[in-house]
């Protein structure tokens, strides 16, 4: 009950709607925050939340921590390269939406892939998230040097054609993604729970976001993706996500069952 009250309070006071998030993970994060700030009961956070705007920011940061790597699940990028890129090459102009981009690792993975396939110059990538702090970090594109070993191994397994180090520069703050790779990326705030359709995309990638939603919200978001896709457009989900709860199985065909890549059918 305390979790319900807390989520209701956030919704009524600020309009952010976390009520259809998968409860187990949500509760875990709320409990974590609670113990970190020394609250005994979850409901103790409600007055703080109602009277202190900066507390909301703290909560949102807690709710939207996502940990991702560049080229996480390399086989997915291999699939994009082999099965999606050839089709993208037939378009004069390519629009891609990366929903839930968090701190940007996957955006730059995709940008590099498009660059290597000669598509970057005619692409625009919309990278969205509801967390402005994460978006700022994504825009900066700075990653710690100790993560680069994993990123680089993934990149090779994903079929990368050069060396990952070609795409960043070392600075005092870490490894900075080169400006060339940023110029066709538009970072924007978009909330999958409450915001609506987003242009006619050739590819939408949204990985490991749906697992945080309940079935109802998954269905809503998947519908939003379908409506934001051009005919023949591709949808790429997380490796443990699917169209199961969406009623979209008739509108989409499976391109690669393991990489969770789907394509919108022409009616």
């Amino acid at each position, binding site marked *: 009950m305390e979790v319900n009250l807390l989520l209701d309070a956030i919704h009524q006071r600020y309009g952010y709607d976390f009520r259809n998030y*998968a*409860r*187990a*993970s949500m*509760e*875990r*994060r709320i409990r974590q925050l609670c113990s970190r700030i020394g609250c005994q009961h979850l409901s103790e956070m409600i007055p703080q939340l109602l009277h202190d705007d900066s507390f909301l920011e703290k909560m949102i940061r807690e709710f939207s*921590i*996502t*940990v*991702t790597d560049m080229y996480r699940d390399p086989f997915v990028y291999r699939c994009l390269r082999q099965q999606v890129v050839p089709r993208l090459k037939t378009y004069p102009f390519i629009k891609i939406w990366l929903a839930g981009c968090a701190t940007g690792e996957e955006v730059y993975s995709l940008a590099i892939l498009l660059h290597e396939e000669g598509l970057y110059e005619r692409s625009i990538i919309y990278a969205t998230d509801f967390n402005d702090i994460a978006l700022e970090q994504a825009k900066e594109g700075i990653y710690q040097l100790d993560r680069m070993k994993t990123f680089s191994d993934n990149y090779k397994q994903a079929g990368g054609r050069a060396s990952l180090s070609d795409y960043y520069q070392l600075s005092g703050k870490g490894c900075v993604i080169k400006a060339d790779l940023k110029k066709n990326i538009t970072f924007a705030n978009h909330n999958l729970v409450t915001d609506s359709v987003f242009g006619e995309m050739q590819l939408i990638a949204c990985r*490991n976001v*749906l*697992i*945080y939603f309940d*079935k109802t919200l998954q269905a809503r978001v998947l519908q939003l993706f379908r409506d934001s896709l051009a005919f023949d457009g591709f949808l790429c989900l*997380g490796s*443990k*996500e699917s169209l*199961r*709860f969406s009623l979209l199985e008739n509108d989409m065909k499976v391109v690669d069952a393991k990489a969770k890549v789907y394509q919108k059918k022409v009616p």
Partner: protein
Amino acid sequence: MLGASAGGVQALGTLLSLLPGDLQVPLVIVQHMHPAEGSGLAELFSHSCPLVVKEAEDKEEIRAGTVYFAPPGYHLLIEIAGTFALSVDEKVNYARPSVDVLFISGAHVWCSQLLAIVLTGANNDGAKGIQLIKKCGGTTIAQDPATAAFPAMPQAAINTGAIDKVLSLEEIGTFITKW
């Protein structure tokens, strides 16, 4: 629910082969693995265990008589509705899946009905979880460190004072069967 780390694959091979084909409860397992080693655990054990062995899926309904493994690279949690949830939240105890994450979420849902077991491993994952499970009235077992390939993990659980029984794999098999 059961957590295992280093040495766990072999221990589970022994334990799962001891279970009867008509187990009346579900068994949910976190075995630490490198994500690159893929999702082969369920398949590996499906040959030696008389029960249905599978990888837990997001939102899947949890059924009795089935052994579920957390997918490598994901935390596995239990929802109030008796379904699974997956997350890619930060690692806990350097692990994802983490035994603590599973145990703690299970404690909130199943409380005193829960049986939690810590097997061989070289870290202390699970030690926090079993304390909460004990507090909720659940039952806790650690593999006898003397019989574990890597004693650190069951020992860490025992050291919390929240373990009800210290047993060998064979005894754990009998205990689960009677549960």
